[in-house]
């Protein structure tokens, strides 16, 4: 299966695996504790002691990046999962439920989708604050409508298929039809959608952190790393470039992988 992927897909897959492993085991490899001041100099460049230089307080950027991957990848994956599962669940409910319920849910989701995601996230953060669990819920909530819309159109189409009609005439209950007949046939397209949502959430989350409204210090994800080192921009310190590149490789990698897998089918 991997062999049949085009080159861009292989690069994407390798990047995704790299970041997943980094998120899982990165902290074990970090040469320095995440908050320790190890260099007298700030914004120092690449050297053998500090492979990616030091940040605005003289902390090791490499170690902070390894710890940051956990937040960026972990939080985004969890939020994307939550958004997809909620979206699919509601879509199945709408597809097998009463017409009024479908109408209400769809109208509500259409409204939510008309609010640009970053704006919605900002309003939510203003209202509820930004602890880690709240960020997770906010990111998931922001992307439920998109996931719902795609899942619903899939589910409604599947519900018209002959085999579902047969199951209905056999007298199967609504939940059986939703979960056993419709859901298994939605999984594949929804996986691609999950990947896209993951990319969106990584960008949203690092955007929020960059604005100082996401992951709060002393913890830091990639977005916060860019933010806290923004004063190093004028001198071109690796401390600000490296986390920005990290976000880009992660999102581009996932995108290349999804596109390659889509093209294959």
């Amino acid at each position, binding site marked *: 299966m991997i062999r049949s992927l085009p080159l861009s897909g292989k690069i994407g897959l390798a990047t995704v695996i790299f970041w997943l492993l980094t998120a899982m085991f990165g902290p074990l490899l970090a040469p320095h504790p995440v908050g320790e001041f190890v260099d007298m100099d700030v914004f120092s460049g690449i050297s053998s002691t500090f492979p990616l230089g030091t940040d605005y307080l003289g902390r090791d950027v490499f170690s902070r990046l390894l710890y940051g991957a956990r937040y960026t990848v972990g939080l985004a994956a969890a939020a994307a999962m939550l958004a997809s599962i909620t979206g699919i669940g509601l879509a199945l409910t709408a597809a097998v439920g009463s017409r009024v319920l479908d109408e209400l849910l769809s109208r509500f989701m259409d*409204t939510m989708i008309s609010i640009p995601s970053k704006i919605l996230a900002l309003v939510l953060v203003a209202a509820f604050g930004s602890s880690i669990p709240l960020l997770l819920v906010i990111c998931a909530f922001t992307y439920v409508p998109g996931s719902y819309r795609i899942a619903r159109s899939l589910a409604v189409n599947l519900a018209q298929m002959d085999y579902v009609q047969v199951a209905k005439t056999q007298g199967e209950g609504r939940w059986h039809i939703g979960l056993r007949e419709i859901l298994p046939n939605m999984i594949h397209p929804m996986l691609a959608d999950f990947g896209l949502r993951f*990319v969106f959430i990584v960008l949203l989350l690092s*955007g929020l952190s960059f604005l100082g409204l996401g992951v709060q210090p002393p913890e830091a994800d990639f977005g916060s790393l860019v933010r806290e080192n923004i004063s190093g921009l004028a001198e*071109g310190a690796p401390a600000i470039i490296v986390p920005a590149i990290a976000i*880009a490789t992660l999102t581009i990698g996932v995108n290349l992988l999804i596109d390659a897998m889509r093209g294959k089918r």
Partner: protein
Amino acid sequence: MSIYRLILNRIASALLTLLLVSLVIFIISDLLPGDAAQEMLGQSATPEQVAALRHDLGLDRPAYVRFGDWVGGIVSGDPGTSMVANMPVAEVIADRLPNTLRLAALTAAFTVPLSLLIGISAAMNRGGRLDRVLSISTLAMVAMPEFLVATLGVLIFSVKLRLLPSITMVTADQPWGEFLRSYTLPVLSLSVVVIAQMSRMTRAAVIDQLNQPYVEMAVLKGVGPVAIVRRHVLPNAIGPIINAMALSLSYLLGGAIIVETIFNYPGLASLMVNAVTSRDTPLLQACAMIFCSAYLLLLLAADIIAILANPRLHNK
């Protein structure tokens, strides 16, 4: 249905959506823990003082009355008073809105022609080397965060080459050269994702038409490839292309939040971020409503242009 009925229907449904959106924004920001009265008086206030101020601010009225008041205020151009700046929200926004509009207009003027060019030439060479190169590079660019483009841009053009400023100054009587220099980096950072998205969607729309039988007919008749695209394909693809543009340009609304912050640009998006950090609810609500209306307006305009551009709807 006549074409005017169609357009009127579309406008009515956009207005309804906007009303629902305002309801959602009002409900969420109304859930803010603690209220403005408590915040303004601080911890030492007696419950009586808080109650009195709540009454003065009208916070003790039922939520639906406040919602009606708020919507009425927005429609009549007076969305309340900014709690932090202690100025009418309308004035605070009037200061910033033109800057954001200028940034958006410059970006649109730069991205639209370029994406059309990329999208159409990729579609005309579909499957060829040019198409593959463009497809992979736009695919990578779609997921590029503004941070990276902005920081790399500053690194190359401000730090290494010392050509462009890393902070965007906005002054009233900037000479032209100065104006272009200060806007180049922000516009560039915003453009990357927009161009990638727009040209991908344009390519898809054009290829969709190129696969139609009437194009094959034109090829057999001996029409050249450029004439096919110009005379036959573009008039038919205009609806989807306009839609692609509206969707990609709506991305500007979100992208502006990051770019305005990086370049210290005094626009509406950075104003909204300040409103979030300072918990300035009236200002936050007003900014959110402007962004949502802009988004809906873009989609509405795209739909109306698509309706007008579709000759099949004219004859009915």
